[in-house]
């Protein structure tokens, strides 16, 4: 999740939702829970997260720390239930839950389960609901993973990032790469589906280093892999190191080559791409929660800095998105006072909804139905096919489907389709 909150309007203080929302019957409903805690902050990370020492260092002594966090989130769950009921959207069960961070597994497994219980008792979970938590390989044990599984979690996503010690060191990741296969084993033994996250293009990472990481992932035999090009975000320690010349700036050509290598290695291992940065063994192994983002479904993000999105209106494409205050203490204070934790929101009209539909829809393997693209965008399709960015066969069938080259240039494709 990006650190800086977007510009937006001030949301209603009572947390009420726009009255124009329809009943949302045709959209799935996902829940995201943000856990803004880490033991250390990694140099490249710009996520909304806080270390214990950062939180303790704050004045006043009222630290909104780990202990009371689950309870705080459950207050927001109760608030959400009231707001959804008020616009007639309270009846839908939750089809996916995703707990992200930060490092969710810094919280005791019981806390994560308690939050899940709260969600379940409020809206119910759809049959076969997907319930994921992110985890650091060194913050799980066989016992904690078993406890999560017993509590209803179905899936765990480990932040592996790399199998190469010097790359992990540059990223300031503290886990021992040897621990990853063991953690994967424990998760499997607990009955959890497992995904591994990788980062490529870290300063100093050679193509061989990257191949080692990919080989290590394949050796784990997981059914889902996410691989992200390292982005040097403003305001991070790494950005400062790059600016000072301590670290070289990531080279986009190098990252492109590594993307292609990842796609080759993972495809050969039986994992197919289903989103630009995501590969799964079968369509059923895809992360359904994330697919909900790319399809423009509804989701409620709980926790500091979390974004929420609800779409659907009787009078045409509209949606509302809002985001919570960033800091855990401000978040907790708002909820304690019975106020909405939302810091800002935006109401999207047809143009914005359309633009988002294109920029998100084009990223996935299902492709973007071309009837979601206006005439000028459709006019650009032939050129994009000729340039090898869109799949010709799919275009003929009325879908914008990225080729591999197109996946690397997806933003350019979106600009052409929305010109």
């Amino acid at each position, binding site marked *: 999740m990006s650190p800086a909150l977007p510009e937006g309007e001030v949301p209603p203080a009572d947390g009420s939702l726009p009255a124009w929302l329809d009943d949302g019957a045709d959209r799935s409903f996902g829940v995201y829970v943000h856990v803004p805690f880490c033991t250390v902050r990694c140099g490249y990370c710009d996520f909304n997260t806080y270390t214990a020492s950062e939180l303790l260092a704050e004045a006043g002594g009222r630290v909104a720390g780990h202990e009371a966090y689950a309870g705080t989130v459950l207050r927001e769950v109760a608030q959400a239930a009231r707001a959804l009921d008020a616009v007639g959207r309270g009846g839908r069960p939750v089809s996916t839950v995703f707990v992200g961070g930060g490092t969710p597994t810094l919280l005791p497994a019981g806390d994560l389960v308690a939050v899940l219980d709260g969600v379940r008792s409020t809206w119910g979970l759809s049959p076969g609901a997907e319930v994921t938590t992110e985890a650091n390989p060194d913050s799980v044990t066989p016992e904690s993973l078993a406890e999560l599984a017993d509590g209803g979690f179905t899936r765990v996503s480990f932040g592996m990032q790399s199998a190469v010690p010097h790359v992990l060191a540059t990223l300031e990741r503290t886990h021992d790469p040897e621990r990853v296969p063991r953690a994967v084993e424990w998760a499997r033994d607990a009955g959890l589906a497992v995904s591994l996250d990788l980062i490529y293009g870290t300063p100093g990472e050679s193509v061989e280093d990257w191949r080692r990481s990919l080989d290590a992932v394949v050796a784990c035999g997981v059914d889902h892999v996410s691989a992200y090009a390292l982005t040097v975000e403003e305001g991070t320690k790494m950005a400062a190191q790059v600016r000072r010349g301590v670290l070289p700036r990531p080279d986009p*050509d190098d990252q492109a080559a590594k993307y292609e290598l990842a796609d080759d290695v993972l495809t050969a291992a039986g994992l197919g791409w289903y989103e630009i940065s995501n590969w799964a063994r079968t369509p059923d192994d895809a992360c359904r929660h994330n697919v909900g983002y790319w399809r423009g479904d509804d989701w409620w993000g709980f926790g500091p*800095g979390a974004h929420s999105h609800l779409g659907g209106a009787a009078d045409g494409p509209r949606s509302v998105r809002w985001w919570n205050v960033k800091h855990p203490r401000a978040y907790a204070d708002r909820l304690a006072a019975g106020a909405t934790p939302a810091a800002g929101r935006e109401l999207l009209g047809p143009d914005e909804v359309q633009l988002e539909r294109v920029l998100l829809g084009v990223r996935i393997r299902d492709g973007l139905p071309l009837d979601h693209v206006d005439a000028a965008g459709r006019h650009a399709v032939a050129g994009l096919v000729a340039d090898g960015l869109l799949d010709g066969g799919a275009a003929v069938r009325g879908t914008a489907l990225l080729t591999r080259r197109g996946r*690397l*240039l997806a933003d350019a494709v979106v600009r052409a389709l*929305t010109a």
Partner: protein
Amino acid sequence: MSPIPSAQLSSRIQPAATPPELLRNFCIIAHIDHGKSTLADRMLQLTGVVDARAMRAQYLDRMDIERERGITIKSQAVRMPWAVADEQGALVPYALNMIDTPGHVDFTYEVSRSLAACEGAVLLVDAAQGIEAQTLANLYLAMENDLAIVPVLNKIDLPAAQPEKYAEEIAGLVGGDPDDVLRVSGKTGEGVEVLLDKIVRTVPAPHGSADAPARAMIFDSVYDTYRGVVTYVRVVDGQLSPREKIVMMSTKAHHELLEIGVISPEAMPTKGLGIGEVGYLITGVKDVRQSKVGDTVTNQSKPASESLGGYADPKPMVFSGLYPIDGSDYPVLRDALDKLKLNDAALVYEPETSVALGFGFRVGFLGLLHLEIVRERLEREFDLDLISTAPNVVYDVTMEDRSVITVTNPSEFPGGKVGEIREPVVKATILAPSEFIGAVMELCQTRRGELGGMDYLSADRVEMRYTLPLAEIVFDFFDQLKSKTRGYASLDYEPAGDQAADLVKVDILLQGEQVDAFSAIVHKDKAYAYGVMMVGKLKELIPRQQFEVPIQAAVGSRVIARETVRAMRKDVLAKCYGGDISRKRKLLEKQKEGKKRMKTIGRVDVPQEAFIAALSTESGGKDAKEKARK
């Protein structure tokens, strides 16, 4: 005995009633910052035209008005009374006319007309710096016109002054004894009275025929917002009087003399102007083109049959495309040029369209300095942001079928069978310390220069005369000259006809599409260097696209240089989850806005900044600016 004539004496030198033998017409030839205005101010003060107390106020006023109204208020010709004792010791009154000469290299013709209005010239040289190339060129012009030269060293109060050394240099140039070179300080006034006396004694009185039909030469004309065009003339024969009808001999245009007078120091209407007198005319016309410098004014009822000669139309030598950076400023640019034209007879322009730059004008200038002055005025006075294309000269291209095409824009260069191409050449004078002779020669040789001659002005200063293609000077020459001589060299040049040359047009192609704004006409031997330089520059400036972009320099169909902007391989946000979508959408919206500021050449998106950077005529513009300053 005061040298300022008494009232009684003054009655003998009234405008329209001064015998020619009591008139002295002179100008001051000086390099910028050698102290011409300070000396002129001191003369105004000593002759009582401006009193000491009013001097400062006067000076300040003038500055203010100049700021407000540009250059129009400058005293083009000031009439000053001065009395000198004759052999019997009796005071004789004289009317001295001090005529201003434009101080810069692009205005040689205007200088020549100012000189033609005088019988004498004060050669003013900074005693700490010695003579500069431009001053030397104007001195030669004065000597060719048989003007009496009064050599003067100024700023003798400066600690760094070396009057002996430079007196010798000047004596070597104008003849005579170094001791005859006057030494003055415009700042303290020292020596200025002596100088005025010497002007009276040295400069010949004008002569002309009182009974002949009136003939007066226009040596300057300026547009004044309130009065219309003010025309400065020197009467040669006959007399001009108010209310009479006059004729401009080159255009045969008739005007009524609404006002005629002298400047002393303000415009002062008179009963007319007689033989040898200098003053101004107002006819109510609004455009300086109707009062052309060099033209002859005569009387309609009793017209002269022959003009005074020497008239020439101003001829633009250097052309550049001027484009507003914001395309919607085009009408503002057009109106601004129309306004400047009122006061600048040499400014020519016509609309031009560039694929790369949109709508603009191809503008002709007398030279680089003129270009820079106009550009600066457009930007400052009319608040315009402009791109100017690299300046080029005018080529005459004779095709094999004998048709002749005048090329003022490289993109107009004909593609068919070319017989001969002629380019303008200039005579350049370069003054430099003798230790830099080698460096100057090397530079001039690489610029296709032909050495015409070389003279030592003194033991350690040398004058070198070269014939050079103007195109070579337009491109970065002055910068190079300064850097190779540690800033010591000075340059002057004047048009000297044209020559056949082995020239080619180099085109720049982006992905096979020619970019008109980057075409250049260069000597065959330099085509490669230009091509390599330009494609290299563009490679750095053009952002990577989804496809490979070849940048080629070509002469005709032959590619002489090539670079490639490699295709962008990655343009995608790796992570796009719930919290990223809003930011991502806004970024895209911003990029779409940014795309509107791009020019698309074929399929290649080129940011406006890339055009500006690639076309930046820093060298050309700086040349001219430096020149004005030095």
